């Protein structure tokens, strides 16, 4: 696949992004796209692992799936929001098409954007840059 883009130029500072999804192909696609764009990527394959990694890695941003065994993406974000050490971490949520998040949920969980699957990796990267550039 030829994707003409200036990925590498978009993110010069190596910011850390945690990607959490129980589908490994999503993890691979997303982390490849982000790594190529110069981000440091950490991946977790369920909500609990995501929570642990968020604590140990303190990423700048979390991209998480909504539906995951044990701990849902929404719950993961909510918990991080409640703790002072991680409450600043912004999140992008990946969901099944058609799922909508209430404004209250977004407020309580630090979720800045929702992308429905199948999503465009190009669009995801643009969204990541957008969210990182937004004022806290």
């Amino acid at each position: 696949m030829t994707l003409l883009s200036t990925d590498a130029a978009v993110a010069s500072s190596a910011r850390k992004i945690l990607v959490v999804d129980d589908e490994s192909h999503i993890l691979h696609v997303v982390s490849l796209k982000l790594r190529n764009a110069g981000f440091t990527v950490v991946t977790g394959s369920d909500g609990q692992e995501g929570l642990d990694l968020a604590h140990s890695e303190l990423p700048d941003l979390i991209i998480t799936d909504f539906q995951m065994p044990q701990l849902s993406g929404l719950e993961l974000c909510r918990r991080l929001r409640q703790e002072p050490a991680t409450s600043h971490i912004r999140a992008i949520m990946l969901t099944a098409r058609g799922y909508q998040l209430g404004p209250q949920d977004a407020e309580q969980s630090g979720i800045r954007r929702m992308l429905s699957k199948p999503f465009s990796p190009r669009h995801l990267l643009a969204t990541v840059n957008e969210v990182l550039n937004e004022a806290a």
Partner: protein
Amino acid sequence: MPSQATITDTSSGAAASVPTAVLDTLASRWRCSGLFISLLDPAGAVVYHDSHASPFFLEYVLAQFRAELGKSLALGADRIGRAPVDRSIPGVLLDIHPLIEKRRMQGILVLAAVDAAIDRTEDLQRAAGRLRLDAQWLLAAARRLPPADDNSFAHRSRLLLDMLHDQIRLAAVQREIDSVSGELSGSYEELTLIYQLTASMHITRTPADFFRQACTEYNEFTGVRSTGVALTVGSLPGAAPAMFGPMSLPAPELHRLGSLLVDAFNYDQSPIIINDLAASPSYAFLGRHARQLLAVPLFRPQKHLGALFALDKIASDFDSHDVKLLISIANASAIYLENSILYEDVRGLVMGLLHSLTSAVDAKDPYTCGHSRRVALLSRRIAREAGLDEAQCERIYMGGLLHDVGKIGVPEHVLSKPGKLTAEEFDLIRRHPAIGARILKDVKQIQDVIPGVLYHHERYDGGGYPAGLAGENIPLIGRVICLADCLDAMTSTRTYRKAMPLEAALVEIDRGRGRQFDPALADALLRIGDGRLKSLLAAHHALGGGGTLLDSAGDSAPAIGETR
């Protein structure tokens, strides 16, 4: 890409590599068991070593590789099959493994450990002396490392070698995963693009809008400078070739390209890929503007609808992915286009029939010629001004067209009676909304339009007919048509009175807001203003409508609302 310890074979220029990360992983795992890892290129130069190793290795062993020993190891390396333990360095056990890739030696892996018999080696003193190292210090450093005898060293180095091969395989698998992920990522992009396109194939969308989206997405996705569309003559009336993107062709070239492509796809539906336009016999005229062209047909079974084309990829030549994606877009677009054409066809037929029907009704009274059409136009304009969505505006247009269809059931002599009507005659007139609604009641596609026919004579204050509804109880479509109907009636000459100038009619509308008319809708109509209303109706008159005197001042002012 991870950094690589590249071994360059100077004789052929070919290079093989073991990822540095792999060597680092191994080095860190084996450091504590006293194994020192280094990699020499085929000429014997050190290209990698465990940089966190004990000073014993870094100052003593490595220094000897660099001083000639590397070269002699390299000379011997390809003669070594299963390497026996080498004792070229006093007090040190060496294991030498040539790395063979594609039947060529690409490098030499040298493992080292402290010889368990180091204390008995006098040569160590001499070697240290040559390197100007303190022998006592060297021995002390060596004693901090786990010593090895021949057997345990051979065993350890074999294990390490197995691990190295596993790690190399793992690194290759990781590269493969990355490549598959890259492909998958591309498929995701394609999938989303096609999904978005199919989701936006509303029939109410204009083809220009649809193709703008399709072409712009393709530009962004493949990095081409411009993507465009050309349709076959007659497939969609009035559709000229169009291009979307930062680059555009002058109109004559664009038209010429469009008709060339459409003609070409008539005979052969395979994609056209030209990577050097200036050198192409048929497309050289584009050479001044663009370098590359990719074009695919818009095709449905038995139907050739046109072509999609992309110009200038810049970064590289068009490849099979670009072609495949443009074909996918073209296939989706062709379905949309075919539906659009069919829809336009049926819509044209229906609207044509409706216009004929309502003209027939209007013709019963020479003074109402063109009235239905004008009411339809005015109603739609008011609806738009009031902010209704386009689909609703079109329904209201249809309602305006049909509002008086019930007059077909009212005797002509009553409709065109010049003087005042008797109570019985007025009663006949007042039946036309109900008659109209009855005529249309079985046409299931226009059920939402019927209230406009039935309630266009209701008044906002409840004093109208046939139901005497008031305020918001009157369906919106009825309230809109009522306004349009009254405005056109006032500004038209009727058998029973002369036309009023538009300006005066608008004053009457203003006076009737909240009484006869919905105030919000009346405001919308007044906002449009007489200038724009005149040009709207003038366009209609140019088509031959009659009976209105929008521009001349009438000398008698009839009472408001005296429409029949």
